[in-house]
């Protein structure tokens, strides 16, 4: 309010009709400035993407279609052999596994906060879960490597010995430690706060009347959730899950620290080793030569396309089911 008074007092008492030229000029300049900056950023990002593609091209050209099927990474060798198959595989498996662990916990905790807990308790639980999102990924990596991995050996051995007949738990070497499963648990902890926060917002948007109607019919709290809250929130939860998937797919440092990097397609989630696109860039970047860097950029391009596809898919799902999810709409 003060600002208005000041500018009125500052000699602006004449009728506005005398003023427009100055005001209009200012408006045009300001509109031009904001538009210019927005368009410049748009252009800059497009240019950066083109350069990303340009710098990836030498490696893509050299490897040809083998880039998508090769399971080794020796781009700087005299006869370079490198490809993303093992990397994409590791990325997808670890991310999906992380979501399988994180989503039930995140959605359940969000339901607790919005539907079951007293408001004060719910608010504090919400704050604390949000703190998980603030922890830097390098700290998660360090913690995963030195706290979680040693403590998960027993659990992993138990899984391997009792459920070893299921192919993904098969681990004949009987070595346990820095496995895809361990990396996925760390990823799950990182994805959890995102899924939980978006789910909370989605549940809050369900109209109160829907719950009251169910409760008035004598439904228990769970029946209320199942019959009126969850059906209303389905697309929003899908949006939350995809948002979490995006985070898990692109996570670099935590995976690079926790996983013992090997280079093969590893569907045995208990065996130490495996690799992801992002972690491979982080671990190989320092020693990469010219072709190596180009190859890493090309693999980053693949990661970029995967995440773009995932988020675009999420947006179309959310749009089709007709309800805008927070953070995606």
């Amino acid at each position, binding site marked *: 309010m003060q*600002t*208005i008074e000041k*500018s009125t007092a500052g000699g602006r008492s004449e*009728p506005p009709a005398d003023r427009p030229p*100055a*005001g*209009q000029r*200012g*408006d045009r300049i*300001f*509109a031009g*400035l*904001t*538009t210019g*900056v*927005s*368009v410049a*950023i*748009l252009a800059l*990002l497009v240019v*950066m993407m083109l*350069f*990303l593609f340009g710098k*990836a091209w030498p490696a893509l050209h050299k490897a040809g279609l083998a880039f998508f099927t090769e399971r080794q990474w020796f781009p700087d060798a005299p006869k370079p052999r490198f490809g993303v198959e093992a990397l994409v595989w590791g990325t997808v498996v670890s991310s999906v596994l992380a979501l399988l662990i994180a989503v039930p*916990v995140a959605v*359940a905790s969000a339901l*607790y906060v919005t539907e*079951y807990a007293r408001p004060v308790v719910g608010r504090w639980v919400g*704050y604390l*879960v949000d703190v*998980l999102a*603030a*922890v*830097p*990924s*390098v*700290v998660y990596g*360090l*913690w995963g490597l*030195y*706290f979680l991995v040693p403590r998960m050996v*027993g*659990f992993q051995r138990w899984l391997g010995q009792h459920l070893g007949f299921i192919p993904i738990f098969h681990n004949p070497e009987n070595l346990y430690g820095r496995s895809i499963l361990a990396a996925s648990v760390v990823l799950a902890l990182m994805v*959890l706060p995102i899924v*939980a926060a978006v789910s909370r917002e989605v549940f809050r948007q369900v109209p109160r009347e829907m719950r009251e109607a169910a409760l008035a019919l004598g439904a228990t*709290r*769970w029946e209320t959730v199942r019959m009126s809250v969850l059906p209303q929130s389905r697309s929003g939860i899908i949006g939350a899950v995809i948002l979490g998937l*995006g985070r898990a*797919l*692109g*996570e*670099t440092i935590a995976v690079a*620290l926790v996983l013992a990097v090997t280079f093969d397609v590893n569907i045995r989630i208990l065996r130490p080793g495996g690799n992801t696109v*992002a972690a491979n860039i*982080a671990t190989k970047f320092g020693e990469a030569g010219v072709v190596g860097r180009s190859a890493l950029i090309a693999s980053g391009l693949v*990661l*970029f396309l995967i995440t*773009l596809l995932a*988020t675009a898919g999420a*947006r179309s799902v959310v749009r089709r089911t007709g309800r805008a999810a927070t953070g995606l709409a």
Partner: protein
Amino acid sequence: MSVDQAVLLQGRRLDRPRAIGTSAAGLAVALVLFAVTPLQGRADFVVVGYLFAVGAYLLAAARTEGRRSVVDRLVGVLMVTAVAVCLMGLGAVLVYTAARGVKAMSGDFFTHSMAGVGPRDTNGGAYHSILGTLEQVLLATLISVPTGLLVAVYLTEYGRGWIAAAVRALIDMMVGIPSIVAGLFVFAFWVLALHQGFSGLAAAIALSIIMLPIIVRSAEEMIKLVPANLREASYALGIPRWRTVLRVVLPTASAGITTGVMLAIARVTGETAPLLLTAFGFDSIHRDPFHGPQSSLPLFVFSQAGSAFTTAVNRAWAGALTLIVVVLLLTVAARLVTRRNRLVA
């Protein structure tokens, strides 16, 4: 209403003392099992004890209440368990990092760099990387806050037609860019194509790519929340649109915008992956952020953590603790600013 009428309306309910009693009994059975049978181990006891306590509780509920009510209680238990898992995860990360970090802190940590320090040496510190982080985050903020605000103003005030749609789509896309890909953008464009080399500035550009969508989104939301009558009052006084935006709309939305900016800063302070490709890392003090590789606190933690020697890993823990404290302080401060925000409250 008499007690009988309440029972008629609600059915018989398991009261709290009995619920607690039966759970304790379940736990006691588990304790006895661990004492007399070959079962052992802390983790195993937690699992078995939890299952027995929950089982006893649900059995007691099933004896007094109907099936639907028992299902309701089971789901309630699962939800509390989920919350407990979240909080245990959080507690484990914070407590373990704090414990290891405090033990590893030394007088050198905030005053010395890693110049000439080998992985097995006990001295050496993170001064150079703290300096690098400060410079890089400051530069990133200087780049992304003005541009972010201008883009937000464009989208809310002037954006029409396909250009606005394209800008909005771009901001949406930027939210989903993995941070390492943001690093690759700057590496391919700034470092390689423009031959600028690794530098603190390159890192700041990469961080700006991450900050920009966060700032634009939050500023846009806050600007939309500014009541229309404030704007109209300003127009009625003959004040042009641009001055209205700068002196009425933005100041009113400032608390919310500050929150967004602080959360963005907190987010990029802990970023490691893009810095690896842009700042590259450096062992000595390097004050100039515009030329030559620089270190940063997350990079310092990453490089020390990968070492096989406890001395280096200890430095990583000290760095991790510093990082967590800074980021959490920023996050809490951002929340406090929100609380004073008249638009949201």
